[in-house]
């Protein structure tokens, strides 16, 4: 049984405890420093981590969606239009955004997911552009290129979360919900189905797993999470335009996922935690964000094929050898 140690996954390995402690500490930083800037970055980390978590679910069946920003956009516009035009409370607008994004993914998923690999990447890239162009074309709903400003803030049961310090706990709560959902999926029968489809589609099909349906489920759940994160972003920032949800945002999510670890459960969280603050803290470097992301991506692909989440294991293996 000596070989089994590396692959068995009991509920609490020492490594898991270290991870959880590290993430909890990182989450507490804004309260230690009290800086509004830190609260803002922490909230953005939560939003990115939610979106990247959705992308991870899609990656678990072996697909890479470059339309993830468009689904965030669908969620954002759904919630904003419901809240501003129909006076729906924001607390209902957020799940409605997830629902509509998920529904759209479900409908277009069946024909789209027949494609795999680079073809799926290309078609989703085209879809993201299509979303942006359509939204620019219907200014009566989208606000056109000038976007929609003055979006109502998130309010919980009549209490408006008007400042950063009050939004942050709610962002953490939402992120915990999303990560909880990811853990549930991953540990359950559905997660095994996803992994089987990701690893060997033909073998999964011949085991009687409905592979097309399995991929559609993943795409729907992942895109719904994107929709939720987009709606959250809209109500937090207070402004959206079709350009907010352009192709570059999709690419950012992909880079966060790959940097964190494409198939690791905590990959999306680690990736967002690392890459969201990075350009913000390199003062005056915000405009070079995509250059920084590109360099990080190349470094990760070269040195950390399992992503940052796989770093401790890689280190311990090196240590064991040396």
């Amino acid at each position, binding site marked *: *049984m000596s*070989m*089994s140690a*590396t*692959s*068995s*996954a009991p509920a609490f390995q020492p490594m898991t405890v270290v991870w959880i402690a590290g993430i909890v500490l990182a989450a507490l930083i804004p309260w230690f420093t009290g800086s509004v800037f830190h609260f803002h970055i922490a909230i953005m980390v939560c939003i990115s981590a939610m979106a990247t978590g959705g992308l991870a679910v899609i990656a678990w069946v072996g697909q890479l969606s470059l339309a993830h920003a468009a689904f965030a956009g669908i969620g954002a516009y759904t919630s904003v239009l419901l809240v501003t035009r129909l006076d729906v409370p924001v607390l209902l607008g957020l799940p409605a955004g997830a629902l509509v994004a998920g529904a759209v993914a479900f409908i277009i998923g069946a024909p789209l997911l027949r494609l795999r690999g680079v073809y799926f990447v290309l078609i989703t890239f085209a879809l993201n552009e299509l979303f942006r162009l359509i939204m620019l074309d219907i200014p009566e709903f989208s606000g056109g290129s000038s976007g929609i400003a003055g979006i109502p803030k998130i309010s919980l049961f009549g209490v408006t979360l008007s400042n950063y310090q009050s939004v942050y706990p709610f962002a953490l709560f939402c992120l915990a919900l999303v990560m909880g959902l990811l853990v549930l999926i991953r540990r359950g029968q559905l997660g*095994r*189905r996803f*992994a*089987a489809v990701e*690893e*060997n589609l033909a*073998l*999964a*099909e*011949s*085991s*009687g*797993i409905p592979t097309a349906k399995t991929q559609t489920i993943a795409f729907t759940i992942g895109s719904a999470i994107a929709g939720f994160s987009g709606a959250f972003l809209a109500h937090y920032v207070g402004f959206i335009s079709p350009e907010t949800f352009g192709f570059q945002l999709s690419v950012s999510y992909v880079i966060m996922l790959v940097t964190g670890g494409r198939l690791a459960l905590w990959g999306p969280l680690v990736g967002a935690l690392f890459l969201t603050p990075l350009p913000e803290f390199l003062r005056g470097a915000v405009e070079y964000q995509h250059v920084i992301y590109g360099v990080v991506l190349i470094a990760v692909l070269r040195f950390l094929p399992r992503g940052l989440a796989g770093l401790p294991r890689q280190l311990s293996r090196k240590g064991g050898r040396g």
Partner: protein
Amino acid sequence: MRSDLSVRNLVVNYGPVRALHGVSFDVPEGQIAALVGSNGAGKSTVLKSICGLLKPVEGEIRVGEEVMKPRPGDPLRHGVALSPEGRRLFGRLSVEENLMMGAYTVKDAAARDDMLDRVYGYFPRLKERRRQMAGSLSGGEQQMCAIGRALMAQPRVLLLDEPSLGIAPIIVAELAKIIEEISRDTSMTVLLVEQNAQMALSIAATGVVLETGNVVLTGTGRELLASPEVRAAYLGT
């Protein structure tokens, strides 16, 4: 004797090349049949046709009374499970997860757990390594896992594609014993496709020898093992 799996006049082409020229044979219910032949004889083509992965030009495949449609998944629904050549497993899933994937079509959870216990009974080593990643098993253990996964579907017909390929002789002997045991206990029908004619024929009730897409000999396993043609062509004696 009733036959559980029956291949009738199977003709299969790969493009312009004819791979099978009208292959027919029966696998009697509850027995082990061996399909032997050298490289390129058409063994895998027969298996792929049985699994619905190839569309035959002519002929049909029956499981019990049912005629199979040439569609992947249809034979599985009628109780045909394949343990594929080359021990294809989900390498990053654990041994137990691989086994449970085999039982995907079995909806009754109690029956699934019962079958898992039985598979662990046949292959105690899989139980020891149940949480280990399947990709990290030895070749023989991976083969056990592949056979176990096929068993998990609780098939009436079990197809084994080259279980002895690339495995140490001592493990091959162990596998042969277990295959015999499974067939005896569960009265499952087994079609064993092998290049290792010695091993396959020694445990098979029926043997079928395939050569360049034709059935050239049939008989009981013992008859074939004793036949001069088989000895000369496949056993090197």
